[in-house]
């Protein structure tokens, strides 16, 4: 079998590629980024974010320990409005520049991608002034400083406690006409899922280029970043250096925290609920099931992915949760996020299973349930496997 037998490329797809290539070969440079797909993709992404924000009525980003509820017009509002979606400006906060630190070079996790340049970037290239954190997504706004006018600082990732989160940060090149932004303005969007705390410090590794219409807001791949210099490269697109900007986000005081709970699930299973927090976005909690040895023998299968050793090859059956509240709301899959993995397509086990030497086991999930009614006082979580709810694994969680 050759590769075309494996999967034949449709003719219309070939025509699409040819036409896209011709379009790019014939396009004037300034029009490069104004493609239909690009704009459409951006709108789709934004639309989703804004719907979440609208539905959420209030998890807030409080940026820095001395955040100010400024009665000002936020540029992020303009950014949101450009999508014609609803948002709530009162959730935006001003970043206090005293809490921002800047250092030359990449953080430790990205040292391997650092390029040796003779330039040192230990001064801010932009002023980071606004942020919006909705419990999942972080938006930031910045404006180039005088010294930073000639540069474009871009990244597609940030680090929080050493964990990488994916997103985009860079100048709003290519969007200036439609959104009324200037080319010295930056916007970043990052998906922050699975954070243990709503107070955190962000490390943002920036690749610095000379500002140019040619520079897209998307960071180039590591493959390219590792390449050595070449005489054929246009100077404006050679990386000038690296910089790491760190700043704090403090949203915890806008989050209602509950005391930890321990629930007896059945005679040999208990469950601990910790880190139980409520925002107007929803409920976040850590759920740890403790199975004694006999329970582990009977139920552990339900907590784990079914893999090839179990001869289930028609797809990995994974554990899941069914959630209802005391108001009778049954939450759908789009509202239940387990070990939230929105920032990555990497598969993450929805339940982390730890087998103990005595045969017992601990099964841990981080769960976020969105769009919860304000007056809901109790949640019922039920473990599911292969689509089947397991009656014996039902946990009642009090929201009082």
């Amino acid at each position, binding site marked *: *079998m050759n*590769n*075309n037998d*494996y*999967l*034949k*490329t*449709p003719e219309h*797809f*070939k025509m*699409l*590629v*040819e036409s*896209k*290539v*011709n379009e*790019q*070969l014939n396009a004037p440079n300034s029009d*490069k*980024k104004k*493609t239909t*797909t*690009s704009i*459409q*993709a951006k709108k*789709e*992404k934004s639309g*989703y974010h804004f*719907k*979440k924000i609208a539905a959420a009525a209030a998890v807030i980003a409080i940026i820095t320990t001395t955040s100010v509820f400024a009665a000002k017009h936020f540029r992020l509002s303009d950014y949101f409005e450009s999508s014609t979606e609803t948002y709530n400006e009162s959730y935006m906060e001003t970043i206090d520049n005293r809490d921002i630190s800047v250092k030359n070079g990449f953080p430790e996790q990205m040292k391997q991608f650092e390029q040796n340049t003779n330039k040192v970037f230990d001064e801010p290239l932009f002023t980071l002034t606004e942020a919006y954190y909705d419990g999942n997504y972080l938006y930031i706004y910045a404006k180039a400083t005088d010294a930073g006018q000639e540069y474009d600082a871009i990244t597609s990732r940030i680090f929080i406690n050493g964990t990488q989160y994916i997103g985009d940060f860079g100048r709003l090149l290519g969007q200036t006409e439609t959104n009324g932004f200037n080319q010295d303005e930056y916007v970043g969007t990052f*998906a922050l899922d699975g954070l243990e705390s709503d107070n955190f410090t962000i490390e943002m590794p920036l690749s610095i280029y000379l500002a140019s219409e*040619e520079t*897209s807001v*998307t960071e*180039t*791949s*590591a*493959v*390219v970043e590792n*390449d*050595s*210099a*070449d005489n*054929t*490269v*246009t100077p*404006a*697109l050679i990386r000038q250096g690296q910089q790491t900007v760190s700043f704090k986000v403090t949203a915890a005081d806008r989050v209602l925290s509950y005391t930890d709970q321990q629930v007896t699930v059945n005679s040999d299973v208990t469950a601990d609920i910790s880190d139980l927090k409520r925002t107007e976005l929803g409920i976040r909690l850590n759920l740890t099931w403790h199975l004694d040895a006999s329970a582990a023998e009977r139920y552990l299968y339900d907590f784990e992915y079914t893999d*090839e050793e179990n*001869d289930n*090859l*028609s*797809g*990995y059956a994974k554990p899941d949760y069914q959630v209802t509240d005391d108001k009778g709301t049954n939450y759908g899959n*789009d509202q239940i996020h387990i070990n939230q993995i*929105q*920032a*990555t*397509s990497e*598969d993450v086990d929805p339940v982390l299973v730890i087998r103990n030497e005595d045969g017992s086991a601990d099964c841990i999930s981080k769960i976020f349930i969105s769009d919860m009614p304000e007056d809901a006082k109790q949640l019922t979580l039920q473990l599911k496997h292969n689509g089947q709810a397991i009656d014996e694994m039902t946990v009642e969680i009090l929201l009082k």
Partner: protein
Amino acid sequence: MTKEDLGNLIIASTDSLYRISKSILRNETDCEDAVSEAIVKSFDKINTLQHASYAKTWLVRILINECYRIYRQKQFAPSNDFTFKENLSNEADYSELYHAMMQLDDKYRIPVELYYIEGYKIHEITDILNRSEGTIKSQLARGRQQLRKYLESEAAQ
């Protein structure tokens, strides 16, 4: 590398771009969007490509990033208009191997696709997927294992 060279490379790689996007996204329209966007970005960034010999790896990496971006948007979009199993019923023309590949877990399927279908070397896949060599080797082994068992079970039916 000139724009014309890149254009030629892209057109020559059409089948490969299609297969790779299809292994991640499956939905035809999403694949078209991902490849279109990857083409635009590759032309935008052509001057950052410093060695022409890396061009295809670089292009595939851009494509995979685009696929993941669309994957994330679709996966968590409020509407239920996207599932990874969608369209399979309309894909009667696809090969048995393709159907088997679609049963693989994502983390195994993409390395298997790149190694066995596209012919990339392990060190190239580590660059493309930004995973360690050990991880790629183990994912290939597990992917192979799953694939074999799936094909055996299909043959037995």
